[in-house]
């Protein structure tokens, strides 16, 4: 990665700019209610655009089947658990636990069959 330092500098500036912009005394304009409404959907949209491909396309990397993919099963289990529990940490630990158990289960089946 030849351009790493340039990438690091640019990304540092961009993230700081977004966090600092309205703290600046020289910026006098306000965000309109429409812009605020559009921005309020950024966090859920970004995060979903990142987790959905992992859960639904994760089986492609491990050359497994879609329906038995640990990514899909553990992902659906995490979604179900997040509807029942509001504790973020508990949901993450539960999801990782289901995923880990499925991986161990599939690995042991594979070693028994071979």
């Amino acid at each position, binding site marked *: 990665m030849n351009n790493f330092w340039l990438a690091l500098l640019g990304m540092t500036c*961009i993230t700081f700019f977004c*966090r600092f912009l309205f703290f600046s005394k020289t910026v006098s304009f306000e965000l309109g209610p429409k812009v*605020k409404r559009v921005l309020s959907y950024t*966090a859920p949209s970004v995060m979903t655009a*990142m987790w959905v491909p992992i859960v639904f396309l994760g089986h492609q990397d491990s050359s497994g089947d879609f329906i038995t993919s640990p990514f899909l099963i553990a*992902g659906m289990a995490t*979604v179900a658990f997040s509807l029942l529990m509001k504790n973020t940490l508990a949901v993450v630990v539960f999801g990782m636990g289901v995923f880990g158990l499925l991986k161990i289960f599939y690995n042991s089946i594979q070693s028994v069959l071979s």
Partner: protein
Amino acid sequence: MPSRTVVVTESVSSDVKIMNRGIVDIFPLALATVPWGILCGSLAITVGLTPLQAQLMSLLIFAGAAQLAALTIMGSVGSLSAMFSSTFVISSRHLLYSAVFREHVRKSPLGLRCTIAFFLTDEMFAVTCAYMEKHKSFSAVYALSSGITFYLIWNISTFAGIVAGQYIPNLEHLGLEFAIAATFIAIVIPSIKNRSTLVSVVSSGLSAIILSIFLEEYALIVATFIGMFCGYLTNDNQQNKEKSNE
């Protein structure tokens, strides 16, 4: 003189209390991002960064989703324009947080404003807003103590990922990748409280799957935009009622 000392000690001890509150409140949220930090560290090693470069990303950029997206791009094509544009789109939600805190920090000196801005994250914003709602006032001590706690845990977990990434090859295949999915599911699903958020989540998820087939580099940005605008265009029931009342 004695009374003045009493006042000073009192305000110091109340600051310490607020500081402890901030640390305790953000702690569970910070722990939930530990697997994610480990992933950022190990993935950086996998795509060929040195340990120092990997750590500097967390020390300076300090934005999990943006770092992860950038690492994925570095691992595939690695164009700066794709990296910068995805960083901007992912970070644009901080513009909103910055606008919300604006009236509370505007009169503070530049150094304090820069520091609060640097430590402004989703998690710090969430706990500070909850604190503001409860106490009816903004506290820079609270914002900074929760923000710095989060920063430390984020960087320690990145470091752990860097160390692990050097000794355990293909660490990300052990399922750390799933940690991102689990973290985001745990944050996003409970935040769906109205129809427009649901529409924005479903449309960005569907387009992310379809777009990742033929738009590798820009799939994340385009899917995010689609999600934002579909959410924006959806009227929530409450607003419909207001409109029909007019």
